[in-house]
């Protein structure tokens, strides 16, 4: 019956592949084309400029700064989120002090899980509004209010969190981690629960502490999941458009103060829609595309390890 298999597979794939090609691959190809022109975004009149846009990108300080910010996020966001989520997941699943020798999480683990996952069900717009209230630059903000009540801050000179060039990127990063950790916590929890209990029990019998259990058993068995999480988070770190454009200072897609929270996506949008340099913006889009592609490939290759079957 072998010959019947291909029509069967094709029958299933034809619709999604066609959609994917028309709505994803074709626009990608168009973008490559547009990035070689001086298209202004509002008409079909344009001129071919070769690699001129890419040459300009190399000398554009704002773009290089934005790229740097994306790379900083890339370096910090996945590591911080994964470590935090792993820690929580471990505590919630196997970190509890076993009473009668059983393996279980800390008390109230189920409630914590719901609590940590909650940010994940909020839309990005709500996240932005919520955190704008937290970071509000006067005494009405949660952080500044608490600092003022504790007498740690002069009410006349509050910290302008999102308007402070040295803090703004870290403020955004904080929101990303807060919002993301819950999802990865649940992801890691699911993976941990699929690890057979007897492995943990034997470790317990051998006298392994929490730390040893985590590093010698949990982490190696979760490696596949961690790897996936890393790729997802790396992709998220190359984007961050929604939060930066709504929360930070500056006309048309934020990025301020003084480009200090600028990321490629906000700079791209400003060039595309505000300055009418759509061709130039497309070149930036292509750069992000290759960055992400290379990163994903590298991440998956570098973290490749022997699989442990269980």
């Amino acid at each position, binding site marked *: 019956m072998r010959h019947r298999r291909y029509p069967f597979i094709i029958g299933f794939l034809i619709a999604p592949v066609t959609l994917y090609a028309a709505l994803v691959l074709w626009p990608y190809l168009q*973008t490559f084309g547009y990035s070689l022109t001086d298209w202004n975004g509002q008409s079909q009149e344009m001129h071919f400029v070769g690699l001129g846009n890419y040459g300009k990108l190399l000398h554009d300080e704002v773009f290089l700064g934005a790229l740097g910010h994306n790379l900083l996020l890339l370096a910090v966001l996945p590591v911080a989120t994964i470590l935090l989520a792993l820690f929580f997941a471990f505590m919630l699943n196997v970190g509890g002090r076993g009473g009668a020798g059983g393996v279980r999480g800390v008390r109230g683990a189920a409630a914590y899980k719901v609590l940590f996952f909650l940010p994940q069900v909020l839309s990005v717009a709500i996240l932005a509004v919520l955190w704008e209230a937290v970071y509000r630059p006067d005494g009405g903000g949660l952080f500044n209010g608490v600092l003022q009540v504790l007498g740690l801050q002069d009410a006349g000179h509050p910290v302008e969190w999102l308007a402070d060039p040295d803090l703004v990127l870290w403020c955004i990063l904080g929101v990303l981690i807060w919002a993301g950790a819950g999802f990865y916590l649940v992801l890691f929890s699911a993976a941990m629960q699929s690890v057979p209990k007897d492995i943990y029990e034997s470790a317990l019998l051998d006298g392994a502490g929490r730390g040893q259990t985590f590093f010698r058993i949990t982490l190696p068995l979760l490696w596949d999941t961690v790897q996936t999480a890393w790729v997802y988070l790396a992709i998220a770190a190359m984007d961050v458009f929604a939060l930066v454009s709504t929360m930070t200072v500056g006309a048309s897609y934020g990025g301020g103060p003084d480009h200090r929270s600028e990321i490629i996506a906000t700079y791209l949008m400003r060039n595309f829609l505000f300055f009418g340099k759509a061709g130039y913006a497309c070149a930036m889009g292509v750069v992000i595309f290759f960055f992400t592609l290379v990163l994903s490939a590298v991440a998956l290759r570098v973290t490749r390890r022997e699989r442990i079957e269980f």
Partner: protein
Amino acid sequence: MSAAAGYNRRELFRRAAGLTALAVTGGPLLAACAGGGGGATGTASAVATSAGNPLGVEASAPLEVVIFKGGFGDDYAKAFEALYTKTYASAKITHTPTQDVTGLLQPRFNAGSPPDVVDDSGAKQIKLDVLHKAGQLADLTPLLEAPYLDDPSKKVKDVLQPGTIEHGSFDGKMYSLNYVYSISGLWYSGKLFKEKGWTAPKTWADFITLCATIKAAGVAPFCHQGKYPYYINVVIMDLLARQGGADIIHRVDALDTTVWDGPEAKAAIEAVYQLVDHDYLLPGTNGMTHTESQTAWNQYKAAFVPCGSWLENEQLKLTPDDFEMTFLPMPSLPGDKLPPTSLRAGADEPFIVPAKAKNVQGGMEFLRMMLTKEGAGQFAQQANAVTVLKDGIGPDVKLRPGTKSAVAALTAAGSDVFNYDYPNTQSAFDIELGNASTELMANRIKPDEWLKRAKSAAEKAKKA
């Protein structure tokens, strides 16, 4: 053994992750860049022009109107559409309100099938300089030359407020009708000032002295909408315009870099910096949105706020009934070339007729009907704002206190009104100037550095 066994779970994960990499990141960003094809041009109407129909409107041609539904709502536009139907009963009108002009219309401009009239405003407006460069805007000269509907002995161009035509023009031709006439300056609460015995200052020196008094009374003297540097730039650039007059406005718009080496720019920026230097700002104002800072001002936490005359309508629900919102022209500096009554007055809320629209003539006729006493009166009632039609509001229209004080200031200014073009024509320069002002207001840079940045922004914009 089936072929599926050839894929283990890990393999699937890798593939899934790879695909996700493609789908998640690049997707939204790259797809945003994809345009459509096409490029059909609008069909010229074959209807001959006549005295009763100077624009040659085809009576039965449908008219599609897209309105930015922001602070002014869109009820006024429905009133205009009713006016149009009165004359052209057979024309089918499509009314589309939106808050995302770009999202709605960018694909249609690219496809060559835009609507006939667009109120291109709001945060998601399509920049006019961009549209103009792309050849998407119809030249509105026929509208200007057409007779004014309320008095056919005059032409439309004769009944517009000063600056309206210039502000909507590129290279000497008008491409957008900026319908709302607004003025900018400082605002205060008449009630608060009466209560505390403060008098509105005329000169900048008085203003700074008063600020000290206000601060001593426990109120922050000044707040601004720090998240959007547009507002503080209005203060800085208005002081500059007063110092240098029409000549300097022209030079700024033309990106003349020597402006920033001159004594006028230095005087203006140093005056504004006094607010920072003396610590007269509302705490946290540099990071506030327009709503947050203007609301703090409505709550008497700050005495002055810079804004345009849309402020009253914008803050309608948050203003206490006895607030007595009052307009104050920018205080004057020594050596000003323009009188202390002069102010920035300009036409905003651009209405355009796309060049490739199907009913260009109908679009212009629609604009002509907006420029009537009935149209302007409707607008004043529905949207609490004055239009660019000279004497467009009869004595029967009752104005709120803020608008009333603004109209009084406008009358006092007479012909001494000015406006800059650079925010519309030099977007990149405007953004960099705003960034520099944000830094100055946060006291991270000093006036000298601000001037350097302004100069280099002008240099950069000139090269591009």
